[in-house]
């Protein structure tokens, strides 16, 4: 832990978990859907549903979807800004089993019609954890360089993807692989020790059956 986890983050109040963490959640959904989100359906769970309004949680989530950082002073006006930018959003509540009390399930659609559904929690201090992508279980925070690969489930694809990473001299620290059915949809989450360069993304995207590759490098937020 850094001393700047003790003093900091610089953030728009009032709550690191319900405001700053909610912005981070929105940001990660933005990265996963890619491009510019034009529609979002946000379902709040637990404490996000019961105390979110007073904490500005909905405004923080929408701000994150537009790529704002947790210290962006436009967060309180995010609804109005979203309307200007053509991002339509709706809110609801959901009961999630086994999820942290501060959680949300977010479905976003981008300007190319691509869609993603993300479940994430905000356990405190502005940090977050994604626990679900497109209905498949996952566990990542984006605090270390992370590659998220959505694809068809097919023989040999794990080795082809990790081969690209190995060829770049990048060390993987954690690898998660999930699928919904044999030959169905698959999700790979790869956490790495080094920053993931753009060429890794393009090389993996070129592999047959790969649908979407997302790079999360800490400190490089989407704008």
């Amino acid at each position, binding site marked *: 832990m850094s001393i700047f986890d003790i003093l900091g983050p610089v953030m728009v109040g009032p709550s690191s978990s319900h405001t700053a963490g909610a912005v981070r959640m929105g940001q990660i959904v933005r990265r996963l859907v890619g491009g510019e989100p034009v529609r979002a359906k946000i379902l709040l769970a637990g404490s996000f549903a019961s105390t979110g309004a007073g904490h500005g949680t909905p405004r923080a989530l929408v701000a994150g979807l537009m790529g704002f950082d947790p210290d962006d002073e436009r967060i309180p006006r995010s609804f109005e800004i979203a309307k200007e930018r053509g991002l339509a959003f709706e809110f609801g509540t959901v009961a999630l089993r086994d999820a942290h009390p501060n959680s949300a399930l977010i479905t976003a659609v981008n300007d190319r019609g691509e869609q993603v559904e993300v479940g994430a929690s905000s356990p405190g*201090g502005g940090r977050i954890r994604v626990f679900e992508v497109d209905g498949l279980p996952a566990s990542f925070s984006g605090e270390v360089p992370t590659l998220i690969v959505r694809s068809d489930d097919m023989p040999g694809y794990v080795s082809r993807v990790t081969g690209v990473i190995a060829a770049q001299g990048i060390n993987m620290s954690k690898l998660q692989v999930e699928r919904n059915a044999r030959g169905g949809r698959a999700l790979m989450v790869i956490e790495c020790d080094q920053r993931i360069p753009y060429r890794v993304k393009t090389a993996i995207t070129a592999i047959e059956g790969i649908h979407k590759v997302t790079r999360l490098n800490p400190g490089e937020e989407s704008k």
Partner: protein
Amino acid sequence: MSTYSSMAELLALSEKNGTPVWKTVQLADCAEQDVTPESSWETMKNLLSVMRETDRGYDRRQRSLSGLSGGDAGLMEDRIASGKSILGPLVSRVAAAALRMGECNACMKRIVAAPTAGACGVLPAVLLTVAEEQHIPDDRVVEALYVAAGVGSVIAQRASISGAECGCQAEIGSAASMAAAALVHLLGGTGEQMSNAAALALKSLLGLVCDPVGGLVEVPCVKRNVTGAVTALTSADLALAGIQSRIPADEVFDAMREVGEKMDRTLRETGEGGLAATPTAKGRE
């Protein structure tokens, strides 16, 4: 070996390396995070600018989304202006500054979590006000922030800085402890005195529960920033007078953890007990 998990280790490290406490904290973090002291200094200096900017940008007309917070710092400022405050020029201004920052947080302004958003008013209220009153240069205030961060990281390692884990003593209590030690540095005290100030402040706030009305970071959080700030002032002054805490800081931190573990979950940020369970609090739901 540049890390520390107690005030005793931090002071010993400072002695051994011949570096002041603030510098010891800075260098340990630089080694751990692999950053240069220059870049670390810039980051810390920026935190000071954000604190000052938000303090100056306070608007007494601003209200929180819930309508529970806003305007109180303005009332305190009026009282100071009227010359009727019994707190004297320094303490009354510290109280107003703590309210300003607490209200800014509740009203979705930009703040520095120190160590949390709910307790963000304590440290700036004490440091900005005393530095201004005594014409202390910014560099020394930045150094004091390192001292605060060092104390905070020891508390985080030994106990907690989360209300959900250990109640408000871990938020306002930790903030007061950090601010007291920082203030000792600001006023030229020794490492021993910093440690005593940190201990004295937290001892005074031990057992404080986290019972936010409606689960929101507003009532009683905003006003408890005043309590934390004033406690930091008195603790630093006592320590600078040479008064010691009979229980060393590290043992006070450990006691805070023990008290936190014994605290009922309804009193740890759930918004179900204490003030949150009063008829008035319930009435607004």
